[in-house]
């Protein structure tokens, strides 16, 4: 009995705060936009069987069809995918050496280094993104610095370009890459590398043949932790990317708040969710495989 209630609590929580809202969004995506409050029809009417049948009959796939007709949407999806993939790659490129350095550091230093990676989370995410605007703008610190060194003659335009979006995403999500990779590298037995060297590997080939394969699970976990939230990212592209950066999160925002077209916005959200479900399933399979390998 106690076990059932223990399981029941989280499931009720998920049911109330995930499944029900999802069903509401799904229902809105099948509705039509209207000048009303809420801004769509039909609304759920459970007063009788007939009214309910009329309600179901009014639902249709029109909004999803619309998404395929206007090329804005699939371009936004593709652009989001591209940005998410490239950002994940750069996060790995920068995050792996950081994690490697941390794992190689003296043991009494590691908690401090770990703290430093987590430290940015103590400041508001919005403030940190805004401060990048101050750094990257034409009169910003970066341009001033480069100008004073004489490296450039006129200020670079970085803000409101995709480059700024990449910088913002890589900066924000770096800890999500560093932490899982670090935890995989930290577990690595040093004698494995010695064994590889003993059997004829150079330091470099021991790194590629032993270190990288054995930190694979951390790399995969980190990549998903960066890729999944980046795909739906809205704040960073809208603050740093200007109008030229097309991302699905931004489209969703605009449909919802600027056009007040809740049904289309909901349809965009449903498709985004479906796209995300694939990497989430892959991520969980990776976790499971790792658990099996360890157990």
């Amino acid at each position, binding site marked *: 009995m106690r076990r059932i209630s223990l399981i029941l609590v989280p499931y009720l929580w998920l049911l109330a705060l995930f499944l029900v809202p999802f069903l509401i969004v799904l229902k809105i995506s099948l509705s039509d936009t209207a000048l009303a409050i809420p801004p769509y029809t039909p609304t759920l009417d459970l007063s009788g069987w007939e009214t309910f049948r009329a309600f179901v009959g009014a639902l249709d796939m029109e909004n999803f069809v619309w998404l395929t007709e206007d090329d804005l949407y699939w371009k936004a999806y593709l652009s989001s995918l591209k940005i998410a993939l490239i950002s994940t790659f750069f996060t790995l490129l920068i995050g792996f050496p950081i994690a490697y350095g941390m794992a190689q550091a003296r043991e009494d230093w590691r908690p401090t280094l770990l703290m430093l990676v987590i430290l940015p989370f103590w400041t508001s995410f919005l403030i940190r993104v805004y401060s990048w605007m101050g750094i990257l703008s034409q009169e910003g610190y970066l341009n001033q610095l480069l100008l004073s060194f004489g490296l450039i003659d006129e200020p670079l335009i970085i803000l409101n370009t995709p480059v700024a979006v990449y910088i913002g995403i890589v900066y924000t999500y770096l800890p999500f890459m560093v932490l899982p990779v670090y935890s995989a590298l930290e577990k690595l*037995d040093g*004698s*494995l590398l*010695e*064994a*590889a*060297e*003993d*059997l*004829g*590997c*150079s330091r470099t*080939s021991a790194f590629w*043949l*032993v270190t990288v*394969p*054995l930190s*694979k699970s951390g790399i995969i976990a980190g990549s998903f932790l960066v890729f999944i939230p980046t795909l739906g990212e809205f704040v960073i592209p809208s603050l740093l990317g200007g109008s030229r950066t097309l991302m699905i999160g931004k489209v969703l925002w605009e449909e919802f708040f600027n056009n007040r077209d809740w049904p289309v916005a909901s349809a965009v959200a449903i498709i985004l969710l479906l796209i995300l479900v694939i990497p989430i399933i892959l991520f969980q399979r990776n976790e499971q495989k790792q658990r099996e*390998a*360890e157990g």
Partner: protein
Amino acid sequence: MTQSVFAPWNDPGAKPLIQFKNVTKRFGEFVAIDDLTIDIFEQEFYALLGPSGCGKTTLMRMLAGFETPTEGTILLDGQNIAPVPPNKRAVNMMFQSYALFPHLSIWDNIAFGLKREGLAKDVIGDRVQEMLRLTRLEKFARRKPHQISGGQRQRVALARSLAKAPKLLLLDEPLGALDKKLRQETQFELMDIQEKTGTTFVIVTHDQEEAMTVASRVAVMDHGKIIQVATPADIYEQPNSVYVADFIGDVNIIEGKAEPQGGKVSIAWAEGQPNVTGTPSSEITKGQTVHFAIRPEKVTISATKPEDATNAIQGKILDIAYLGNVSTYHVELPNGVVIKSQTANNRRLSRRSFTWEDDVWLSWTDTAGILLER
């Protein structure tokens, strides 16, 4: 046809495979290896024995190339190996933790070193197959290390380190993780493999029984120095110091003042006790402090005073350790000293001659023990 005994260390013409020449290794202030000089010959099974922290692992890691000597030189086949990195040495090591690559199958683990040499595929395949056969692992080739037992993992580690046919194989506590029964079986397996392959083995262990079983020569170490290098039998019967006598097996040490009498030495060791007589192996001066070391199994225990024994002492049985095949009697002498005597239990327990609190006589001949100066 006479079969010659394998003892290159007694042959002045034999050329050692490995020579340590005045090697010292310091870690900061700590001296791990202290001015050490040893020779290891080809096809030897050389055991480094000592308590933890005595420098035996450091010595091995210097041979593998993971540490370099602070002073002195190490020669392999007459060549100084200090500048040769571990991946270029004809030396392989079997790690204490086995260090098997968890992401590779048994087959790939064994092939790892061969692949680095860039050998042809079929050559690698043949060699791996040979190693699998040698270590009886054919059935497990496709498994991953976490899918096999501890004993099998130990054999994979051995196969992997032997695959490249090294001139020298280093074994760091190779059997430490196995239970006693498996360890004993594996010891004989190791000797068998060493004999078959003709590779020189250097084994590091803190288990004296293991060293005695497998090794052709045992080097007893303490505090970065070699105390004695000898065959297992000599280490046991002719220890050169109290440290070695005490480290290998069980021993009774009687300390006293020497008094040479003809070819023998009489030792005054306690008031009210008869002197102990022993046979010296070196010159002993009168009044010198000497230690008489005698193994428990060479002390005879009897109910009455034996007629012809050179040394006989009376005492009372304090404790009996019954080990099945043998029993060790702890006999307390009137002055409080406890002497151990070991007897083989070739009779059933119900007919055992002695029990607690019995008055007994301990006796031994004058050649049963050894006189040590330090």
